Every structure is written in structure tokens, then in C-alpha cells.
């Protein structure tokens, strides 16, 4: 993954997808449907890191985030979506991975592991976060997975409101409103 100064990943492999289409060849998704391992690997290289980061923001657990991402890849391999545009694939992958992360987190919350989570020591403040005396994990624990997904899409993956709106099936204004409310709540939580 290439990175820019702000720490945002550049999905450079999208260019390779376009190259595949420019050449008049079959889209990468169709190639995956035909069990083209190279095409599948290229997609993993392009999207796995972003999917895993989003999943981690949603569920707050490294193991679950990896499982959710893996499940999304498994689903793509077994049952590729019928998308009429390869560029929609990123959106599809992020959505499936996010749904998996939510479901796994929900399942884990119901299970005995909850005790382990609640018993874990409070993490020490991390000066590298740039927000003084703020325990980001504590704040994330207090908001819903849907809200964490919104934060992840906007501030980790760097998507714009219109992009998020398309991703979540909302209006851009609706996304902006939710973000405004969420930021106000975060500020409140952080001030506590």
C-alpha cells in the first residue's frame, strides 16, 4: 500500500483493474468467478488492508477483524457478486467485511469472552494519538458498531460524505448530519 502524508492509503490497484478493462479483457470480477487465482490475489493485495482496518475500528478486536475480513474474502471467492462495474467491488467488499465484523462482535459480546473483555486492564494513554488524555478505545467502546463504521469510513479510509452515502445507502446530507452528531458526542465523551 502506498501512503501519503496524512496516513491515508491509496488504492493503487484500482488502476490495475482499469488496465484490465482498458485492454478489452474480461473484468477482474469475472476472472475471479472463473477461479482465476492471480486475479483474486490482486484484489486481496488491493483491498485487504483497508477492509481489516475498517473491521478493527468496528469491532475493536484484532482477531475478529482478521476473521471478518477472511470471511468476506471467502464469500467473494465462493459466490462472487454480479456487479456490472468492477469499481463497485471495493464498496461491496467493505460492506460485506463490515457486516461480518458487526456480526462477529455481536456474537462475541453474547459469549463468555465478554468477561475477559470487561476484565482487561484499562489501556494506558497513547501519546501518539494526538488527543491529550483521551482513551480512544474507551470512547469507541461507548458508541455503536454502526457509528464506528461511519468513523472508520470517514476518518480511516478517508471517504467523502457522498462516497459514504453511496456505500451505506444514505443521502450525503444524512451522512454529514450523522457525522456532526457523532463528533459532538465524541467531544463530550473525551471531555469526561
Amino acid at each position, binding site marked *: 500500500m502506498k501512503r501519503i502524508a496524512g496516513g491515508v492509503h491509496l488504492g493503487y490497484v484500482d488502476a490495475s483493474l482499469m488496465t484490465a478493462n482498458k485492454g478489452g479483457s474480461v473484468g477482474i470480477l469475472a476472472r475471479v468467478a472463473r477461479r482465476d487465482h492471480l486475479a483474486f490475489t490482486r484484489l486481496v493485495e488491493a483491498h485487504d488492508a483497508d477492509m481489516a482496518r475498517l473491521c478493527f475500528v468496528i469491532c475493536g478486536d484484532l482477531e475478529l477483524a482478521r476473521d471478518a475480513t477472511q470471511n468476506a474474502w471467502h464469500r467473494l471467492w465462493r459466490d462472487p457478486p454480479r456487479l*456490472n462495474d468492477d469499481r463497485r467491488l471495493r464498496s461491496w467488499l467493505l460492506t460485506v467485511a463490515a457486516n461480518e465484523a458487526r456480526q462477529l462482535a455481536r456474537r462475541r459480546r453474547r459469549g463468555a469472552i465478554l468477561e475477559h473483555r470487561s476484565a482487561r486492564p484499562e489501556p494506558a494513554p497513547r501519546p501518539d494519538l494526538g488527543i491529550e488524555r483521551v482513551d480512544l478505545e474507551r470512547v469507541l467502546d461507548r458508541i455503536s458498531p454502526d457509528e464506528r463504521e461511519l468513523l472508520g469510513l470517514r*476518518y480511516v479510509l478517508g471517504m467523502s460524505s457522498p462516497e459514504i452515502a453511496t456505500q451505506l445507502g444514505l443521502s450525503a446530507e444524512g451522512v454529514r448530519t450523522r457525522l456532526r452528531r457523532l463528533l459532538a458526542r465524541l467531544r463530550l465523551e473525551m471531555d469526561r
Partner: protein
Amino acid sequence: MTTDHPHEEMTPFERQVADALQSYADRPELLRSAGEVAANVRAAPSGRRWWLMPAGIAAAVLLIAAGLAGIRGLEGSGLQVARATVDGVIYGVSAGTSLAFAPGDLMPMGQVSETNAEDYFADRTVYAINGVDPRRALVARQSNQATSAWGGEYLLLVGPGPGTADLCPYYEPEAVPDSCVREPPVRELPDWAGSP
């Protein structure tokens, strides 16, 4: 994709949140090689365990008519049934007034290429529903005109196929059709099966 969008400049607080979240999410443990992911996928069992519906709901797959109870049909233009074509598949268009979706339930799938109910669509984008075969059902955002006529936010596009029981989790609690909550009938064994 970048964090800075011309019309969405971040406030200092947002920038702090973004930096903190990026630092939080950048874990080396999350980075895997593509080969590892691909190997895991190939090694995984082939069953559809990731998105199997509960048995009771799966048993209701054949009850399409009952499954659609509570969804009001549209009248299209004149007396024609409202239809929309997506990716070559013709769907019937209904008002999804009894359906509710959370963010993340819907994923953009494509565009309506042809319809006789243009006025009902806010735009031509259609969304696949998580866990629902897109050939069976899709949704689209409905126009203000449609919303003021019958309420709700979405149009339901029902495709060909045996049923739409996968939609059961998306009905509003007070509108869940019987087919979604009814237990599957117990199959009686023939006499010759007997008990050991």
C-alpha cells in the same frame, strides 16, 4: 481516495480524531500477505455457513406470496405492473413500506436500465440487501413523490425466483408476516418408517 475533499475540510478536532483513529487502526497484526488469505480461502470448507438463514426462515422460502404480505404493490403506469430491469433481469416494483434497513444492510449493486415507473425512483441506483440473493430482491431509494404517496423510503424490486423469505429479518416488528414467524411444519413419518 484521500481524507481531504474540497468541500469537506476537516476542523482541527476532526483532524485530531482522524489522526487518532488512523493510529489506532494501523496495526501490523492486521497486515497479511495475499498468499495467506488466498490459501485460507482455498482451505476453508465449502458450506455456506457464513450466511445460512435460520432453519425456520429457510423453510419458508417457498411462501413468496405470504412473504410479501404487508408490502403494498404499485400500480405503475395505467394498469400495468410496475417493472424495472437491472442487469438484464426484470423485477416487479413494490413499495417497501414495511421494511427497515440499518446502515450497512445495503450495498450498491447497479443501475436500473429500464422501467415503466420512473417517477417512483429517486435515482437509478439499486442496492443489494445483505443476506438476500440480489436476483430475488433489490431495493432502490424512492422519490419524494412516492414517499408522500405511501410513506417509507425504499422501493422493493422483486425478481423471479421461488421466494423472498430472506427478507424476513428486515421487516419492521409490527409488520412481520406470518410466514416469517411460523415454525416449519413437522413432517410426519410414514408408518413403514416405524420406530426402532
